[in-house]
């Protein structure tokens, strides 16, 4: 009798396993519920493959970027704005992976773990998303890029708000072109937001990093005399410079973007110090923009010889950089070394008018520049605009910046880059412009940067 009653306790094993199952079920629901509920076969949310009454998406000034009229999804009224915000807003079919429609699918559809899709059923709509995106600047960027492929990004380095992220090629989502699948050349990477997911050879914008390494490691860098003969002979080959700059100092070398000087400085510093500086600036790291992850850059000197090191220090060799990463580096320099992570969602408001999420910035942990170096870099970048590009090209902006003309494969025009920021206290904006095969940075990227920033003044 006693034995039998003791054996009964073994049933507790099953009871425990049973409740463990309940816990696992609840946890998997908590983790995957949003994904499951927003599946296209969920007839609470989808009708004929279309989201029923998803929430709206608004621009900074309250302009509608996307809204639902019953099962029909409508976009911005202005055609240029639709094209300019395509990659930010995304599409309901999910082609654009980093778009709001994909990343915030749950919220737009009105799902939450606690309420399920109850709010959607009760109020007939999901949560609304208010973006930090400025429509005027977006249109300006889209029009300035014209038929070029590339990207323009602008963010507030004091708050982290992204005001503009335009990627081309793009299309009008209200009249999606039929030839996307056939016209591969014209629509190359059309579903990619190049600001977040793009990777480009940086060219001379990388000199900002090399300059930082020089400032921190060479005490007499500003007073030392340099001479450019149009090339630099290294042990393993020649780094060429577009011009023969003759005798010049470090600041002038930066202004004129002299390859010889920067390659020489990099080789003097050595692989370890340059690599360390690149890593400190997060050039090998990815980071989050809202819920989307940026592309991860590469700056690797592991197998580099002196020639490779020379080229890497001026943004060539195997180096690839993400535009969003470059803009945060600019932001950090402008902001006394503190790099703030960018975000594009200001707030998410549920149908009950409560703010369920607020966009916040964090101090980037993969981007560290000390305050003194940041100040010196800022002066150099200001000197670039003042002494080389000309303040007249950025009327009233007090710009700091660096151009890049990145050599790509043979026979193609180089990528045109401009990275920079305004020093004006009332205009704390950093900007990045990449024009693929756009020629010279000074010639073709600067005007675009100016047009977009002027739209924000």
């Amino acid at each position, binding site marked *: 009798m006693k034995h*039998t009653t003791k054996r009964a306790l073994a049933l507790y094993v099953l009871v425990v396993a049973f409740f463990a*199952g309940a816990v696992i079920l609840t946890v998997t629901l908590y983790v995957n519920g949003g994904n499951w509920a927003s599946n296209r076969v969920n*007839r609470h949310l989808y009708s004929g493959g279309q989201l029923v009454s998803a929430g709206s998406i608004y621009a900074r000034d309250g302009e509608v970027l996307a809204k639902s009229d019953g099962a029909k999804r409508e976009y911005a009224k202005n055609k240029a704005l639709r094209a300019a915000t395509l990659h930010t807003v995304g599409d309901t079919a999910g082609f654009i992976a980093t778009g709001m429609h994909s990343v915030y699918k749950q919220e737009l559809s009105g799902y939450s773990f606690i*309420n399920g899709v109850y709010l959607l059923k009760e109020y007939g709509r999901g949560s609304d998303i208010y973006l930090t995106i400025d429509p005027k600047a977006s249109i300006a960027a889209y029009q300035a890029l014209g038929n070029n492929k590339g990207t323009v990004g602008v963010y507030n380095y004091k708050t982290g708000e992204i005001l503009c992220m335009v990627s081309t090629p793009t299309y009008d989502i209200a009249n999606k072109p039929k030839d996307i699948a056939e016209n591969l050349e014209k629509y190359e990477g059309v579903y990619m937001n190049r600001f977040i997911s793009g990777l480009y050879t940086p060219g001379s914008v990388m000199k900002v990093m090399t300059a930082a390494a020089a400032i921190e490691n060479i005490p007499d860098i500003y007073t030392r005399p340099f001479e450019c003969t149009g090339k630099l002979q290294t042990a393993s080959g020649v780094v060429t410079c577009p011009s023969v700059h003759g005798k010049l100092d470090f600041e002038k070398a930066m202004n004129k973007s002299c390859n010889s000087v920067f390659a020489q400085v990099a080789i003097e510093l050595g692989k370890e110090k340059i690599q360390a500086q690149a890593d400190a600036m997060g050039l090998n790291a990815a980071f989050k923009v809202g819920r989307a992850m940026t592309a991860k850059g590469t700056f690797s000197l592991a197998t580099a010889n002196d020639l490779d090191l020379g080229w890497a220090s001026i943004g060539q060799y195997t180096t690839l950089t993400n535009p969003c990463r470059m803009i945060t580096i600019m932001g950090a320099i402008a902001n006394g070394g503190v790099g703030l992570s960018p975000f594009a969602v200001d707030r998410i408001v549920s149908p009950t008018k409560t703010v369920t999420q607020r966009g916040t910035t964090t101090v980037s942990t993969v981007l560290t520049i000390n305050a003194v170096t940041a100040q010196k870099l800022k002066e150099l970048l200001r000197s670039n605009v003042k002494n080389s590009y000309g303040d007249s090209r950025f009327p009233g902006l007090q710009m700091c910046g660096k151009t890049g003309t990145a050599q790509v494969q043979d026979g193609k025009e180089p990528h045109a880059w401009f990275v920079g920021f305004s020093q004006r206290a009332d205009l704390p904006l950093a900007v990045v412009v990449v024009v693929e095969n756009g020629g010279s940075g000074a010639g073709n990227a600067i005007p675009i940067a100016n047009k977009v920033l002027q739209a924000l003044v």
Partner: protein
Amino acid sequence: MKQAVVKINNYKWWLMLAFVTAFQLLSAMPVVFEDKQASAALVPIFAGLIAVEWAYFIVNRLITKRQDFELEMIAFLLCGTSIVIAASVNTGYALKQLIAVLLGLAAHIVLLIILRNVDTAMFLRVPVAFASIGLLVLNLLLAKVTNGTLNWIEVAGFSIQPSEIVKIAFIFVGAVTLEKLQSTQSLTKYLVFSVTCIGALFLMRDFGTALIFFFTFVVIAFMRSGDIRTLFFVSTGALLGAGLVMYFKPYVVTRFATYRHIWESINEGGFQQTRVLIYTASGGLFGLGIGKGKLRDIYAASTDLVFGVICEEWGLLLGLAVLTLYGFLAVYAIHASRRASSTYYSIAAVSAAGLLLFQAALNVYGITDLLPLTGVTLPFVSRGGTSMICSWALLAFIKSADLYRQNNNIKPSVPRAQPQNTGRLPSTGNNSNSTGRRQSG
């Protein structure tokens, strides 16, 4: 600790029943008011259910002078949920389900009366065993193919699942008294009976029920012998058997191929499971409201997938509460088995509770893809007559341990001073072991 126990024992049964009634009224209301035509038919059904509950408890209180009705309360709570869901699908279903509850209650009472005298139960074991095998064989001969399994028999317009009835017999035959345990230390006869039943279920392709029988056999074998080694051999044998089945009947494997891969075939093998998960998530913690779900439009929603309907329409919290009720049944059975006046009740209570809990797990975790989907019902909740009757009958085994308990006035039939060794190995085995140890030392 002791105070807490006393408090639980002193609960007011009528207060608890009032709570059950209130819950049932609340949940029935949206269904009744949904549709004027249906409400005329539904009001008497729900009134009937509540009347039956009160009548059962009042009469029971008067006859048995007991007031611990936790088991029945749980069963009625679950049955109420079942009838509400049935009613929200179809008025006719609700009436059938209410009739099933009444028949189940009757089976429960009849079984309790039979079990009152352990000797009667012991005497009936052999005929019941043969009748069960006969029933399964008859099923195999007569049954027609339904839903890929052969487990239904049509009798006068009602479809009956013999395997459900045999579940009751399986425990009835498996449980034994202490005298019997001490006179025959072998499980052989019961093993033969079990293998026959499970084999028949395999032939019917009712793998879910076969698994439930196997699990119940393991529980009963452990309760009877307490010998882990026997269980080890039995389980190895079962694994081997399962391996042979898979080798000779590959379709068995393909039936479980979607397990953990349901999202890759959301419109084929994973159809039911993905819909359960999608709509369970859609329901949130508090549900979308009774009748407002979409899972109900999926095939077998009120039978196999009923847990998903509860989660979607009544909320995940209520779903978890339902699971807690099954857990409570098992814990209650463990406690009751320790107070029972005969080993027969102890074994029956624990194995019946184990069966119910195991079946609930197979159902709930099967449709949510934590376990392979086997298509078994959720006891007391899934729509279906035989399943409901069987659930109530199984509950009688747990109740018997509670009702026919040891008390201070009536001494247990077997004095406690008797030898306690019920293990299968003769004691000499132990001795030789210890000698061996001594030699090596």
